């Protein structure tokens, strides 16, 4: 069964540095998402992306965050200047069409640790 793949599985970064988290969604999927889960807390929506633009974003997704689909297969999340509070597990998800027909498929996540 096709999977959403995320790299790296664990990223350690100094505070203030830029970090890029990478995702390869399932190949025929059209809708892409990032979520994060701070340790011990619930999974939170960050952003959704469709047709090469952001379709919705949460208040967490401020100017420090950006997303890109650079080459038709990868879907990246960039944090420009990381803060300690960005430490979390970041999940990428995708689905083929509106959720009424297909649920979101999640990757295994990237654990981001900010020092």
């Amino acid at each position: 069964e096709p999977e959403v793949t995320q790299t790296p599985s664990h990223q350690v970064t100094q505070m203030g540095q830029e970090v890029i988290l990478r995702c390869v969604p399932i190949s025929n999927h059209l809708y892409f998402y990032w979520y994060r889960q701070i340790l011990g807390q619930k999974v939170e929506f960050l952003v959704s992306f469709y047709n090469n633009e952001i379709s919705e974003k949460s208040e967490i997704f401020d100017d420090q965050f950006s997303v890109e689909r650079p080459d038709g297969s990868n879907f990246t999340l960039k944090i420009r200047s990381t803060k300690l509070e960005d430490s979390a597990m970041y999940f990428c998800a995708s689905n083929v069409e509106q959720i009424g027909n297909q649920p979101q498929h999640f990757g295994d996540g990237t654990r981001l640790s900010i020092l």
Partner: protein
Amino acid sequence: AQSVTQPDIHITVSEGASLELRCNYSYGATPYLFWYVQSPGQGLQLLLKYFSGDTLVQGIKGFEAEFKRSQSSFNLRKPSVHWSDAAEYFCAVAFFKAAGNKLTFGGGTRVLVKP
């Protein structure tokens, strides 16, 4: 405000015993409803989903869930748990939108299975 509540943070159950995990949501209309499971160090795996129709839905790994509109609930059940069911379980909801649909998650219930 829209919200999803999982009242039980932890549940301990003996192997072979039945399991029920509670989920309540607060929305203006009936959302799409999901249960995901997260094993340690892994991503979110879809157990089952409810979109419409029969209010008792069957999922993978022997799980089922029942949607009760009058109670705004979508409780997850399994008649006989296995040690491999030890994990964290998340209830999630979404609404249909034209360009992607964010999932809103509950806080999760961690299930421990005693031998």
